[in-house]
């Protein structure tokens, strides 16, 4: 599988957790959490440049607004 800069070895995230895994295991772990990706989308929608590639999580009110916005988007069924 292709690995890009968006994916990090586990040691970059949590060295203790990485040490507890069996040697040879090479899980690809995204550098950004779901919340950070959500923050980047929210800032992009507002026209605000995100701070670096891993922005701070957004506040509860902003998250609520985003969630309501995304809940109303109809996903196209039966894409071929």
């Amino acid at each position: 599988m292709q690995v890009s800069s968006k994916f990090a070895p586990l040691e970059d995230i949590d060295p203790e957790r990485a040490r507890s895994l069996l040697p040879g295991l090479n899980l690809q772990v995204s550098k950004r959490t779901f919340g950070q990706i959500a923050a980047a989308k929210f800032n992009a929608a507002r026209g605000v440049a995100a701070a670096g590639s891993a922005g701070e999580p957004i506040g509860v009110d902003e998250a609520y607004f985003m969630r309501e916005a995304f809940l109303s988007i109809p996903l196209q069924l039966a894409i071929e």
Partner: protein
Amino acid sequence: MTAPPAVVISLHGIKTRGVWQKDLAPELALAGYIPYVLDYGNLWALQMLLRGTLDKNVDWLVKEYDRIVADTRCRRPSIIAHSFGTLQVARLLEKYDHVVFDKVILAAGIVPLDYDWPHLLDANRVSWVSSNFGGKDRWPRVAARFVPHAGNSGTAPFRRLHRALHQVAHPHHGHSSYFSQGNFRQNWIPTLQLDKRAVVDRMHVLVGLLAKKVGLPRHRLRCFVLVRDAVSGSLKVGSGLHLGEASRRELDVAIPLDTEGLGAAPALAFNEMREIRQSAEDLKLLAEGFGGNSPLHPDLKWSIAMPIPSGDSFESACGVLVMDGLVELKDSSLANELIDDENVFTGLVQLGSIIDAGTNLPR
């Protein structure tokens, strides 16, 4: 104006007045449903052999259905049926176009195996069908031979498949083995509570999106929604929440949230709120870890686990979406996080809302 109540109708089989319905009714009520226990009397086996019996009972059933819908304002009740009751439900849907159901749960059914559930599901006449059939149940086979219009759906799966038709084999079940409080609480009521149709519809879209993105045939991709098991707290594939070929054993694998090492990917995705990917080499190691008895699909080549966000903060998960493939990926189209894709992000947010709604109902 208050929302109409959620109604669940139950319908028994022959040679009984449905003792199980009386056991089920308080369980439904405790879960917040209005139970309607329908009783068409103690029908004897010989009466079933008469050609007019089915339609006579269905004509009674449609009147009951109309009465319940009018009385409760519930436009889309669910129904749980056993044995001859299942044939009545099937015939009711064929005969009366205005009849719609949310969930249809069938146990030990005698519906013909070529019954056209996909047509009803695509027409939104029914949202979700759960058909339970048993390995030790001989009565559906007998019914299929002698009862007009009957089949043996209580011993074998329906042939016409649909993503919202969930068929569960119970190898040791006899004709009346479905009526335990445990089955009501662990299986039937959670099926009623969660909008599984909405979940599998979104999974269907996401598989299509991924197939288009990576240029692979849809039938070689799979998708699973894992949720926390109510009893053990481990992550498990939600009942019926999978697309693509998977063995029962693979679907039954439980992943404790504190798992470390092989098989930790879904738990990591859940705990860390990050996308976790496994290559063919990772999956080979994982399969070898089971010591020659791996539950994983032998053709599994890659796997991506993504957290399904819960609540309003996007900082915690209520489940994990796993998408994997039975053929190698061809190009680098997945270089970036799949979660960053607008449609995938939208799908995950919507899945989280659906799962939260189904698991936060008062009991």
